[in-house]
């Protein structure tokens, strides 16, 4: 096993460029990110570019630090006791830890969908309207109605719920709840959407529905998805990062990771020898 040698993927981006059109711009970028929980180091020197309007998947065995990394991107780790993040994480070349960045604004730009669907115990309408309301995005009810409809439509939920917007969000099925959470996240019009194992609590049909949705959404949003399922990463993502023991072992074009991994550990994981 060779030492740490992240295959920094600008080459693959060029590959993509040579294959298709213009290379994607880097939307978010982590450089030398270390995360500590108390004395324990959870992430070590992670460098990872997140290309604009692409789906980036983070894979790896349990406890490898992929969710920790995801939470750094919208600073959800801030409130975790004893958690410390060093290194730089930029959003459009601006450091998200700089004092000029308001964490509340950051989270409006970098939305998040959680592992377990967590709709608010409010009506479907209020679930979607909550974000736009607190950010003062609308001037009147008509605009708000429009945002709610658009968000639900974009999350592929509008036709299922348009006649029951006043029913509680918790009355929906698991898959619908997760799509409601996605609609809620995109209602504030974020630039990046983080998804932390969004399908792990769902059945295969609901999972397929969400995967389709991710495919549609990446035209408008930059998506980073943490997943346990390698098949899912292969199906939905354009780029994949493989985490192991708090390190980013390899980052490349998804196809390359699954067909031609450069690292022994990556090869072992994607072929199912460990993990």
């Amino acid at each position, binding site marked *: 096993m060779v030492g740490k040698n992240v295959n920094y993927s600008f080459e693959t981006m060029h590959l993509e460029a040579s294959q298709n059109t213009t290379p994607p711009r880097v939307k978010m970028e982590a450089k030398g990110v270390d995360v500590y929980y108390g004395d324990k180091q959870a992430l070590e020197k992670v460098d990872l570019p997140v290309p604009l309007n692409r789906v980036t998947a983070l894979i790896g065995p349990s406890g490898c630090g992929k969710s920790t990394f995801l939470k750094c991107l919208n600073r959800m780790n801030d409130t975790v006791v004893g958690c410390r993040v060093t290194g730089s994480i930029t959003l459009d070349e601006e450091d998200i830890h700089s004092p000029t960045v308001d964490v*509340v604004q950051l989270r409006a730009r970098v*939305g998040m969908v959680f592992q377990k669907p967590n709709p608010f115990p409010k009506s479907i309408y209020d679930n979607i309207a909550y974000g736009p309301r607190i950010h003062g995005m609308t001037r009147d009810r008509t605009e708000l109605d429009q945002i709610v409809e658009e968000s639900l439509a974009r999350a592929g939920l509008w036709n299922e719920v348009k006649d029951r917007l006043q029913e509680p969000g918790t009355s929906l099925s698991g898959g619908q709840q997760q799509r409601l959470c996605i609609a809620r996240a995109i209602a504030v019009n974020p630039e990046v959407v983080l998804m932390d194992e969004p399908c792990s609590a769902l059945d295969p049909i609901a999972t397929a529905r969400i995967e389709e949705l991710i495919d549609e959404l990446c035209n408008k949003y930059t998506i980073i998805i943490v997943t346990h399922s390698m098949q899912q990463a292969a199906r939905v993502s354009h780029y994949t990062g493989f985490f192991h023991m708090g390190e980013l072992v390899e980052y490349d074009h998804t196809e390359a990771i699954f067909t031609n991994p450069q690292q022994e550990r990556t090869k072992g994981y994607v072929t199912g020898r460990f993990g």
Partner: protein
Amino acid sequence: MNHKNETPEQRKYLAKRHAASRRFRWYGLMGLGIALTTLFLLLGTMLLKGYSSFFQTQIQLSVSFDQTLVDPVGDKSVESLARGDYRAILGNAIKRAFPEIKSRDDRRQLSKIFSDGASFQLQNLLISHPEWVSTSQNVWLIASDNVDMWVKEVVDHDLPESQRRISDLQAKWLAFLEVNHQLQLRFNAMFFTSGDSRNPEMAGILGAIKGSALTLLITFLVSFPLGVASAVYLEEFAAKGRWADFIEVNINNLAAVPSIVFGLLGLALYLNLMHLPRSAPLVGGLTLAMMTLPTLVIATRASLKSVPDPIRDGARALGASPLQVVLHHVLPLAAPGMLTGTIISMARALGETAPLLMIGMVAFIMDIPGGVMDPSTVLPVQIFLWADSPERAFLEKTSGATLILLAFLITMNALAVYIRNRVERRW
């Protein structure tokens, strides 16, 4: 069902395990049975002894409201009627009802079957019916407490005359009145409309109820905002660490401090240091608020803790500020639990006596308090005072007041249960 590989040892062991769980169920049922029996005995005796306090013996007399006696000024104004000589009116009415009784001693005995409050009763009646001046009316007047006890047969009628407070002569008159339907047990409105009195037949609990209400109001106004604010701060904002643990341990300890200690603190702080009025609901409420605060903080923190973290995360990830997370999401979800905790700790404060004794709420107070600075008493202290009184008739008053207090407590607890069941958990 016999498994074919089961050994005799295994079967024996299984039988033992089943026997143990059966025994355990029996212990539980026995405990429950004892508890329920005690409860029913308590409530039963209270009801049996106490319900009679809601009725009192009254005697009907034909009273003539002589204008020269009741309306000295002659304009039927409240001031003029208040200056009337109602003792004389009552005396005349009694004389007319029993014309055959001439001797001074017998007359005195006769007038003693009426309460000292009967003349006040006449005065109040006339003030509310000024048109009765110069007329004769049949009115029901309250009998003395001794007569009341005699009629309710609390006192054994077969005792020798020297050992009872109703003489043979009085007993004869009472029997005569009863035969003429001029003596009845009637609803005791006075019990619910007047303050404390040295005369049991005139004592009421309105003063204590109002005192309790004012005291609880102060307790609630002080402890609810303070308790909720501290709990929200400790649970949602404060950094977890050694200090938070230290404060938590102290709050738990405070909740276990005997209530009389809070009474001492109230005495030192509010009376000696701040010179607030003694026996006032304000001081009582502040003292009870100190006692309630730790319990309230603990109950509120528990209900805040029960709000699942994913809800907070969801709101935070949308860009809600910490205060918005609490106000929009956590507090509404924790509200039923908080309310339940508050009602239960208020119920505890309502039943509390010891700390109030320390701040002088144990005084004999006849007036019904009009505000939080007026001297007053509260229900449990009123019960304590009546239980301590020598007059036989206060015994049923004690039970009656206990019934009223229990009714308030049960209502409050039922309300708490109702809120808890009504507002289902929505996550």
